[in-house]
């Protein structure tokens, strides 16, 4: 999300965008990351219970991530055009849950949306909020393709660190201290 923590709510459904999968891309991704026969070989895949070639779930998820990043960039530009400063998103600590519900086949157009389900101020990272977002993917028949719950950080706009924290943050930003901290 490119919103400040203070501007985020837990009811807005953000339509992130859509993507059409081709056989060539499904096979190329699978050969690199998930070379199981029903992802790489259209003939052999006919013998599987899927009845034909399907995209690796990890391919669908990676595409969903790309669609989200593109949406964030576009949303940043929209905010800037209105004279507003976009918020800052931090790295994701992980994914609580990922459910693959329906296969993706070549030619399918998949749409992705995001809703923030939970939000709170982070204890471990002062100045940041911790979000749990639900990202869902649907096919053209409105079947759920996947549902995921992803954790991420979002910066607080109005955060004023205490002096001690400001000194710590400044030290953490210096390469020599960062090396020590990493040890």
């Amino acid at each position, binding site marked *: 999300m490119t919103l400040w923590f203070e501007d985020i709510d837990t009811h807005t459904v953000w339509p992130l965008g859509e993507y059409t999968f081709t056989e060539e891309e499904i096979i190329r991704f699978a050969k*690199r*990351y*998930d*070379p*199981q*026969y*029903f992802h790489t070989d259209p003939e*052999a895949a006919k*013998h*599987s*219970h*899927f009845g034909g070639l*399907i995209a690796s*779930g*990890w391919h669908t*998820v*990676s*595409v969903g*991530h*790309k669609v989200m*990043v*593109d949406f964030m960039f576009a949303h940043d530009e929209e905010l800037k055009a209105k004279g507003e400063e976009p918020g800052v998103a*931090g*790295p*994701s*600590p*992980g*994914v*609580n*849950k*990922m*459910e*693959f519900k329906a*296969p993706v086949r070549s030619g399918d157009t998949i749409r992705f949306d995001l809703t923030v389900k939970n939000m709170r101020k982070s204890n471990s990272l002062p100045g940041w909020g911790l979000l749990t977002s639900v990202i869902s993917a649907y096919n053209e028949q409105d079947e759920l393709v*996947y549902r995921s719950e992803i954790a991420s950080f979002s910066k607080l706009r109005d955060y004023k660190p205490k002096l001690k924290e400001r000194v710590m943050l400044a030290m953490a930003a210096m390469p020599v201290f*960062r090396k020590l901290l*990493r040890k």
Partner: protein
Amino acid sequence: MTNPITKDRLHFEDLKVSEVIQLGSYKISKDDIINFATEFDPLPFHLDEAVAKKSLLGGLASSGWQTAGLSLRMLVDEFLSKIAGMGGLGFDNLKWKRPLMKNDTLTGTVTISSLRRSNSHPEMGIVVLDFDMRNQKDQGVMTLSLTNLVEVRDPTAPFEEDAA
């Protein structure tokens, strides 16, 4: 109906809880990181070393989804290509514990933590696979629990007590 692709592979009946699969290893290059990020995760700190050095990651690191994909590839090579796999149901508790930095070597183990028959599809077994991915310094990089389906050789066999 026998599946000619998978008939000679390991089936549900051949797998055991607590079995540990040792994965291979992969050294990730700057080009690997930038190629994946360009296609799937084009955030500036995955694409540009100067930006990456100033970011929370402290240097050029792979997209978490690339780390996940590389880990899955290692499991396909060592395990999923040898069993009568039927695809995945999803995964739980994926934790990106530490970034995979340029020139780091990713390796790890996968442990079968649970095996049970599907109640609704007697021809399917459900296997849970716990990943513990590490770098060349044996530091934890990523953990996750993958839930996959595997063919049951004899779907007419009565259900045994589920292995824990």
